Each structure stands twice: as structure tokens, then as C-alpha cells.
């Protein structure tokens, strides 16, 4: 029993050993003590690598609108899964869960992004589920 665990751990160690350097000074930009949960409308996308930037209009409880900048992950991987600018058009409503910028500004990272109806942004339950992921031949 203990032998099996050791071997499995070894396998895990081997597989995690390569640093997949995401180049992310996360702790320098964002505050783990400031989780955010925002519902907002996309007003602009910047398809920058390694971080997409999603500009979001968020209605506050007071009724004012705040303009947030949400940092996402790299877009190029999404392109190869069939995601395009049409997957996240201006005007669509999304939910963002992540962490706020250290300096308290209206910036945050978007770890978890979902559409308003609860569908995971960019990810489906089987395959990629993303529009234009190559599975629908009529989409061109």
C-alpha cells in the first residue's frame, strides 16, 4: 500500500517538475486578501499576450457604473480552441471571480469567468464547447 503511494507521488512529482512559467507576478499585482466577484458588461477586449484585458462596466449597488479592467490569461491558446473575438463581443454580460489589484484600483484578475446563464466562459462540458472550435462544419 505504502509502495503504491510512493510510486504515484513519484509520478506526480515527475510531471509537475517542469515549471510552466506563466510569467506572472501575480502576488505583486493582486491581493489574495481581496477576492472580487463582479457582474458586468464587456465594453472592450484587448487581445494582448500573455494577458488578455477585458474592460467591463459594472453597476454598483448605488446605481453608478464603474469601469473595471480585468486581466485574463493568454488568448493564443483560446484561438487554437476555436475562440475568437465573436465569443466575447461587446455588450455581453459576464461574471468575474478573482482578486483585486493591490493598490485598490478598479483592476483585478479574472480567474473564473462565466456567462450570466452560468456557462463557463470558453469551456464547455465536453470538448471545448466554444463557438467555432471546428466541430460545427457549417460555421465558417
Amino acid at each position, binding site marked *: 500500500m505504502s509502495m503504491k503511494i510512493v510510486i504515484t507521488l513519484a509520478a506526480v512529482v*515527475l510531471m509537475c517538475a517542469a*515549471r*510552466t512559467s506563466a510569467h506572472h507576478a501575480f502576488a505583486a499585482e493582486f491581493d489574495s486578501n481581496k477576492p472580487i466577484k463582479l457582474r458586468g458588461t464587456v465594453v472592450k477586449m484587448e487581445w494582448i*499576450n500573455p494577458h488578455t484585458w477585458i474592460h467591463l462596466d459594472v453597476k454598483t449597488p448605488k446605481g453608478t457604473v464603474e469601469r473595471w479592467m480585468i486581466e485574463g490569461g493568454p488568448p*493564443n*491558446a483560446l484561438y487554437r480552441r476555436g475562440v475568437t473575438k465573436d465569443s466575447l463581443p461587446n455588450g455581453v454580460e459576464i461574471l468575474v471571480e478573482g482578486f483585486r489589484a493591490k493598490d485598490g484600483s478598479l483592476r483585478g484578475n*479574472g480567474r473564473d469567468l462565466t456567462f450570466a446563464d452560468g456557462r463557463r466562459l470558453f469551456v464547455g462540458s465536453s470538448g471545448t464547447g466554444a463557438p467555432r472550435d471546428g466541430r460545427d462544419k457549417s460555421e465558417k
Partner: protein
Amino acid sequence: MAIRSGVAIASLAVAGFMALPACGPPSSTSASSASSTTPRTAWGHPDLQGVWRYEGAIPLERPEQFAERASLTEKEVAERQQLEQEQAAKRLAGQEGAAVGRRSVAESPIRGNEYNSFWQDHGRPRQVSSRTSLITDPPDGRLPFTADARKAEARASARYGVGPFESYLDPDTGERCLTDGVTGMMWQGPNGGHNRIVQSPGYVTIMHEEYRDRRVIPLDGRPHGNIRQWFGDAVGRWEGDTLVVDTTNFLDRTNYEWANIWTRPSESLRLVERFKRIDANTMEYTITVEDPTTFTRPWTAVIPISKLSNDTQIYEYACHEGNYAMPNLLRGGRTDAARAASKVRRP
């Protein structure tokens, strides 16, 4: 009419006469014999073209616990295969938090949990192999760092992602949207490490997706020049079906921060790379790194690289054009410094 035909003839004469170095005939170092099965370009060189990526799970260095073991047992390989399948399926379904025991954003430490993996290019399980390291020499499978470089690597590891960051010089070269260097280019990359190889008469061009790094490698047997560059000065030749690339004349960038010290160039760095197509979908890439500034002896790694489907693209990599992370982390640094200062002021 007569004038025009005269002009036409003279034009052809011009074309024939001038020895134009840039568009001369292919290199005199001949590429291989008819017995090889490597496909050929239209001008007869071995064809290495396509979009390539390392899709394996072998780490660069052999983990400590494997000591002198260069290979795993069959049982260990089978276990890894199963684990890899499970993890890949979970990543694809967006459940990687569950795969590693995390339950919610609030419960998770930031580092390593910044983004769900739908952002990363992990759509497929990685290839499992019995090898315990990409490094084949030295025999212990580990980087032969000098004492100074080992300290530098430990320091780089400790500060990676956390800082401190006092100025734009403190993040690593990747965070600055410069480059991650040449050494790991053919098998590493924070966004998936895709490389497109394009061949034209007299040149092999490698386009790395990250940072839009680009190497244009001449094959005409010219000597190395004397102008230093971040990517050095590469010259290539064919040895049979193998492309051999020799690169020197790197700029010294050891004073910059690097995510991985083993990729940092110095003036004494020399790389010898060998690209050999094994079959339609595999290339064997061998790199020998020699740099007395960082390593006590040369080291060699062999990496099996996979060819991706023909419609795979390298997309534009606009990094510096929107590097908001830089001002954000510098502002974060100022916030931290201000907080620390105010703690000192108010007991």
C-alpha cells in the same frame, strides 16, 4: 520591337550574370542522399517545416529522488500515463481545481491558482515517456551550474512572481516582454511554446510564438560576424538530413532577471543544435549548451518535438503593446512600500 527584345535579352543576362548573394543557389554543403525518407523542400533540402511543439511530460532535470536512474519502469510509465489522462480530462472540463484538491477561489493560495486552465493550451494529455530527464549529459541528468549560478537560480526561484519589484528592471525578461532567451525556445514557452519552421533557399527561419521571437538562420556557410545580439548570431549547415546550427555572439544579459537562469545569455555562451526529423510527426531536437559563465561544463538535452496539424497557426504576440502588468506590479510595489513605511511610523 527590336529594342524591347534587346532589353529582354539583356535583362536575362543581368539575371544570369550577377552573383546575388541573397538569392544564389542553395548552400554548397549538400543535404543528404536519396536513401533518406525525410521529405524534401522544392529545392531539395530536408523538410523540417511546420508548427512544432514539445508535448511531453519529461522535465529538463532529473528530479532528486530518481538519482542515477535514467529510465522509469514499465509500471511507473503506466501509472504516469493514467494520471496524465485523468488530469488532462479534468483540465479540459475546467475542473483542475478539483484535480489538485482546491475547492474555491477563496480557499486557494494565489500562486499556482491564478487562472483556470481554459486559458492554457492543455487540451491534450502530454506524452508520457520512460525518460526521467531531457538532459542526457551529464549522466546525472542535472544542470551543471557553477556555484554562483546555482545561487542565482535559487534566488530567481524564490523571487519569481513575488518580487520585490522596485523598478522595471526587477521583473524577469519575460515579464518585461523581451524574451525568455534562445536556449529553451524549441521546447518551452509560457503560452504553449509553439514554433513554426519555415524554409526558403539559403535560410531556415524559426518563429517562436512567445514574444514573437524570430531566428533567421543562414545556410551559406558564412562565418560568424562580430555584432552581438540577444539571440546571438546563428549559422546553419546540413549534415545529411540533420540541420546543425551553431550560435555565438550573444549579448551579456546576465545582469537582468531571468525566470530560468539556465536560459540567460552571456558573452561566452555557445549553442549547438541539431534538428532531425524522425518521422512525419516527430523531430529529435538536440541542444548542447556551453557557457563557462553559468555552467561548469557543457550540457546536452534531447527533446522529442511533435508536429501539429497543418492548419495550426502561430498568432501575433502583442505583449509590450499592452503590458499593463508592468505598471500594475510597479504600483503594487509602491503600495507595499507605503504600507511597510506606515507600519514603521505607527507602532
